[in-house]
């Protein structure tokens, strides 16, 4: 066990993947000498050479399209998209090529490509540096989508993603890059299912589903709620496609109440999918309509407004009050 930041935990995961499989290659902008703008790949080019850790020209479609060709050739490319909002130029290559190649070729060609994306807000950044584009990719057949929330998971999941023969979008919560935690590197790719959600803390009154950067916020909400005698079960989805609905369903059957939270905009988002699927699976166990706590349906706002966009502890607790039938912002603060 070593205490590592989430950023280093991914970095050590990448190092293990590079060491374990000569077909693993890293591609991205500034990932070599600089070590990436978040230093996730720090030291890897020095250790594995420019042939394995490749700085690329500044073109996201080019990076992804090149990765497709390398995958055709038997390589296992790990691509870094520098910031969430920079992924759109590569959208066609991801959704029309990477995602479909296995289907198109009747299984003859695999696309074991991992696409790392620092995502989410809360760092006071300028436009295009705080977005949560995961729903575009969970909506795309053929992709797997992961969001990590803590150093240990980040380390294990990145190694699983790279080992997976399917393409994986790997979302890294950039405002948690400096979160520290114990990391056991011997947790190899086989130790847990990449698809499985994690019950972060058990509870009996409300199920609060989160992923990525909001898992920590959800835990804070659970702690705060316990002071009021409310028991929240927090679930970290980890896998956004597929979603481990069995774990969420089991929790909701117990609590009867569901709140889903994400930074991404609400309309057509993952919260809607989870609310609908859980309602479909266990409608008669629900005591209240599922609630969503999400970013608003606006472009990600300027830094001085982001606190009015991002779900925080109080907005989560407001939704918890709502599903519990307690006084909340919609009923007026007096019940």
């Amino acid at each position, binding site marked *: 066990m070593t205490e590592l930041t989430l950023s280093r935990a991914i970095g050590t995961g990448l190092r293990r993947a590079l060491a374990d499989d000569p077909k693993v290659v890293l591609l991205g902008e500034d990932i070599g000498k600089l070590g990436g703008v978040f230093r996730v790949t720090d030291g890897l080019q020095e250790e594995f050479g420019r042939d394995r850790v490749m700085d690329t*020209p500044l073109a996201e479609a080019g990076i992804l399209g090149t990765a497709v060709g390398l995958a055709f*050739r038997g390589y296992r490319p790990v691509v870094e998209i520098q910031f969430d909002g920079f992924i759109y130029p590569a959208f066609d290559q991801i959704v029309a090529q990477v995602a479909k190649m296995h289907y198109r070729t009747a299984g003859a*060609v695999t696309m074991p490509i991992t696409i790392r994306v620092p995502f989410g807000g809360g760092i006071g950044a300028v436009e295009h540096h705080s977005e949560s584009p995961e729903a575009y990719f969970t909506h795309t057949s053929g992709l797997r989508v992961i969001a990590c929330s803590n150093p240990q998971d980040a380390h294990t999941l990145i190694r699983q993603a790279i080992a997976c023969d399917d393409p994986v979008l790997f979302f890294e919560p950039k405002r948690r890059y400096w979160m520290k935690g114990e990391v056991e590197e011997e947790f190899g790719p086989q130790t847990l299912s990449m698809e499985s959600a994690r019950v972060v803390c058990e509870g009996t009154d409300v199920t609060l589903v989160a992923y990525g950067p909001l898992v920590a916020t959800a835990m804070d909400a659970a702690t705060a709620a316990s002071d009021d005698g409310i028991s929240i079960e927090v679930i970290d989805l980890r896998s956004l496609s597929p979603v481990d609905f069995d774990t969420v369903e089991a929790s909701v059957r117990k609590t009867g109440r569901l709140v889903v939270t994400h930074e991404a905009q609400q309309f057509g988002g993952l919260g809607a999918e989870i609310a609908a699927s859980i309602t479909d699976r266990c409608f008669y166990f629900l005591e209240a309509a599922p609630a969503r706590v999400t970013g608003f349906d606006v472009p990600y706002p300027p830094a001085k407004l982001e606190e009015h966009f991002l779900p925080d502890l109080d907005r989560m607790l407001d939704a918890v009050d709502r599903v519990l039938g307690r006084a909340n912002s919609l009923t007026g603060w007096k019940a």
Partner: protein
Amino acid sequence: MPGPASGLPTAAVSDRLAADVPVESGADREIMLRATVADHTLDHQLGGMSDELVQLLTPQGERVSNHLYDPWIADLTPGQLLGLYEDLVVVRRIDTEATALQRQGELGLWPPLLGQEAAQVGSARTLRADDFVFSSYRENAVAYCRGVELIDLVRVWRGTAASGWNPYDVGMATPAVIIGAQTLHATGYAIGCAKDGVDSVAVAYFGDGATSQGDVNEAMVFAASFHAPVIFFCQNNQWAISEPVGLQSGLPLASRAPGFGIPSLRVDGNDVLAVTAAMRCALDRARTGGGPTFIEAVTYRMGPHTTSDDPSRYVDPAEREKWAAKDPIARVEAFLESEGILTDEARASVAAKADDVATHFRAGCLSLEDPEALSVFDNVYSTPHSGLARQKSQYAAYLAGFEAPADASADLDAHASIDVEGGER
């Protein structure tokens, strides 16, 4: 399952023109050619692009001498020349047959290659089995030359499969429909070849319209930066559906490549000998560490964009007539006749082969059966996916409900088991 994990492409393709120069002419000559032809030719192009077309065979079938490119085809035997002629005739016959099948309702769509036979045959026949092609959807002659089975050419167009063949069996990816996307795949594959230390080459086939796409331009950036052994083979057939090439570029398309640091040349795309020479020259550069080359094969799309298109709305018949006089097959015929190679016997043999291919092609097409319903879920992922597994089992139960009443009780059981598995419904 064949694939990269099992030791990379196991292509079993016909490469009847590949690597003949070194084999038949000796190593000394190969070195001489590389130094004097490849470098000089392309340096000349780099120094100042000209619109000059490389042409070795006039539309009338006269052999034009070209001291830079003649050496690249000097080794071609009469048998090989006849082989090229046969390919041209056969692929045109396949194309004609496919268009007929579409008109008869047997294919949903077909993108004819009429007029582009020489560009495709001349380039594809120079490749080795271990080279790898990434093409667009009109390269059916390339696919034929790579050894794709006739029946596999039509699966997509009949709608029975998402693609026709296993890319690793023939060294050719299945066609990309998104314009230009495959040029990046070729570049990445070529970078992989270089990493592996092999002298295999990747070839990207695309059209004039594709040169406007970002992907194609990014592919050239990446290929130049990484010195990738990739050939950008652009068939300028003058049309992107209804848009003339002048809308894509005011300059010859080949003139763009040097701006990326990639040597380029323009070749008469209706001249199978010139295309062969140009391609061999570019392949030699790529195999010997020279990096990428851009070839603009200037040709003409004599038919519609696809069988759904109506070119009478935009093509000037006089222009088409002008290009009809430059037919890629007629000039080879005239040349081979004048050389005494194309005898009546040989002509009859080629015609018989074309008939035979057409018969098998049609029979293969008609024999394709509709895929099984639940195969719609196959191969989305290479490993189990819980969400999709659930949808599949539920749809299976739904479909079971349409079976004969005698099976009704069994269907109900199937529903019940799904409900238990899927939880409260």
